[in-house]
């Protein structure tokens, strides 16, 4: 066991935990003020729900003894055998508990990400059930496939910190959900303008900050790889914030503050699978690309007309996909991508992209339908008019 790595990963886990309140604010600022609390809640409460589920069986499903490359066994249910030393720890240098809790924070934020797609119209009770099922039936298996000894990792797919596990999976789920739940009342006729952009920028700042824990921590050690992942994360994010502004400026004439924040998140997403595998200069290239591509994806949404309220598909789905493929192209550190002469890696990445989208989309479809039929997921028009805060939580965000 390595105490330096333990210290580093514990702090990184705290940083990743902080991302979820950050996401709550990022999303909360983008909705109308009558929905701010309900939106914040759908991220914040994942800290409660997912963490407890993770301890009960989520962690075991993801990291228990591999069963056919598909799922983890039940060895670690109720954190059985997950202790203060490194016995049984997937990371030998870390106490098993440290590894478990670091992974827990990733599990927390993933279903929270999805909630942006159906913001302003999802009922709270159904949301909780949906999220619990999604965690166990989509996240845990996918996490196992990639990091827990499952087939995708065995195949050689590169996913440094969660391009597939976190971003593509939530992006695909978001697409499925926002089609199934349908549009918000007033979509198309009313302008849904963010009610508090400073809150969104604050959220973006917290996300950027916490993401250092996400990506550098994914080195699972305080070594040079961690340093590289830290730097690539920062540089890609910086580049994407700029390129989003350039896209806006070329397209509509004005660079916006929300654009800078959105670009930053797009960059963070895109570099996530690549962070430890590429050099900082390629990270800048990936970041520049991400800003343009995700901006384009959102334009496309406006054309296609589905109501992905906070652009989860455009940013996490597309950004994660681009990042996964870019990893197959630019990887040169501890792995070899296209530019290192290994074209196969790109093919492997492609397979992992298709599998992730397919699996997440189909499973989400089933779960959504099941919950919708039994408990019900969509708020009525009247509830949407009053606002989800009053309708679902009997609260209002602000009193001046």
């Amino acid at each position: 066991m390595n105490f330096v790595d333990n210290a580093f990963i514990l702090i990184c886990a705290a940083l990743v935990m902080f991302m979820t309140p950050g996401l709550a604010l990022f999303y909360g600022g983008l909705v109308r003020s009558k929905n701010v609390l309900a939106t914040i809640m759908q991220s914040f409460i994942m800290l409660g729900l997912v963490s407890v589920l993770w301890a009960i069986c989520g962690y075991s499903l993801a990291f228990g003894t591999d069963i056919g490359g598909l799922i983890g066994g039940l060895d670690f249910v109720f954190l059985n055998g997950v202790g203060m030393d490194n016995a049984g720890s997937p990371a030998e240098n870390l106490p098993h508990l440290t590894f478990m809790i670091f992974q827990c924070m990733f599990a927390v934020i993933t279903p929270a990400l999805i909630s942006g797609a159906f913001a302003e119209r999802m009922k709270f009770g159904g949301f909780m059930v949906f999220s619990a099922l999604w965690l166990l039936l989509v996240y845990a298996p996918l996490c196992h496939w990639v990091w827990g000894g499952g087939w995708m990792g065995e195949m050689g797919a590169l996913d440094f910190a969660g391009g597939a596990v976190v971003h593509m999976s939530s992006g695909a789920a978001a697409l499925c959900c926002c089609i199934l739940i349908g549009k918000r009342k007033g979509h198309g006729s009313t302008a849904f303008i963010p009610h508090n952009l400073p809150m969104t920028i604050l959220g973006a700042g917290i996300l950027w900050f916490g993401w250092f824990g996400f990506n550098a921590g994914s080195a699972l050690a305080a070594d040079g790889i961690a340093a590289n992942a830290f730097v690539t994360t920062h540089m890609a994010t910086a580049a994407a914030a700029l390129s989003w502004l350039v896209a806006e400026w070329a397209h509509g004439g004005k660079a916006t503050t929300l654009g800078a924040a959105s670009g930053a998140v797009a960059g963070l997403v895109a570099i996530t699978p690549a962070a430890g595998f590429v050099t900082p200069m390629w990270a800048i290239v990936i970041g520049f690309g991400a800003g343009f591509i995700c901006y384009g994806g959102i334009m496309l949404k406006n054309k296609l007309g589905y109501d992905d309220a906070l652009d989860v598909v455009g940013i996490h789905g597309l950004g994660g996909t681009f990042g996964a493929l870019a990893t197959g192209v630019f990887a040169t550190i501890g792995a070899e991508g296209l530019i290192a002469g290994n074209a196969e890696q790109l093919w492997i990445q492609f397979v992992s992209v298709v599998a992730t989208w397919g699996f997440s989309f189909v499973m989400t479809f089933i779960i959504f339908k099941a919950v919708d039929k039994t408990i019900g997921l969509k708020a009525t028009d009247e509830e949407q008019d009053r606002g989800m805060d009053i309708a679902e939580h009997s609260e209002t965000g602000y009193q001046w």
Partner: protein
Amino acid sequence: MKKIEIITRTFKLDEVKTALSGIGVKGMTVNEVKGFGRQGGHKEVYRGAEYQVDFVPKIKIDVVVEDDFASEVVAAATKAAQTGQVGDGKIFVSPVDEVVRIRTGETGEEAI
């Protein structure tokens, strides 16, 4: 001249504005208000204590128009704002003695 105060649901603002523009209204002034009426309010909860909030967010649109244009404006606003549910709101019409356009100092119907 007449002042027409239209108190209605917040999400009807755009429709009313469009309807009035459509019949030639050139200006209006809008206010966010809270209404108390038959519609009733809602319950709020704060750490286990329940409060009844009687006031519902509404918007108030003030339009000043020539006397003989008033009834047309009232009709258009009524049509645009109506949902048929309790809480659609009210329109009040009251007399205005004088109107001044600050920019030019014009007065009367010229100034509207």
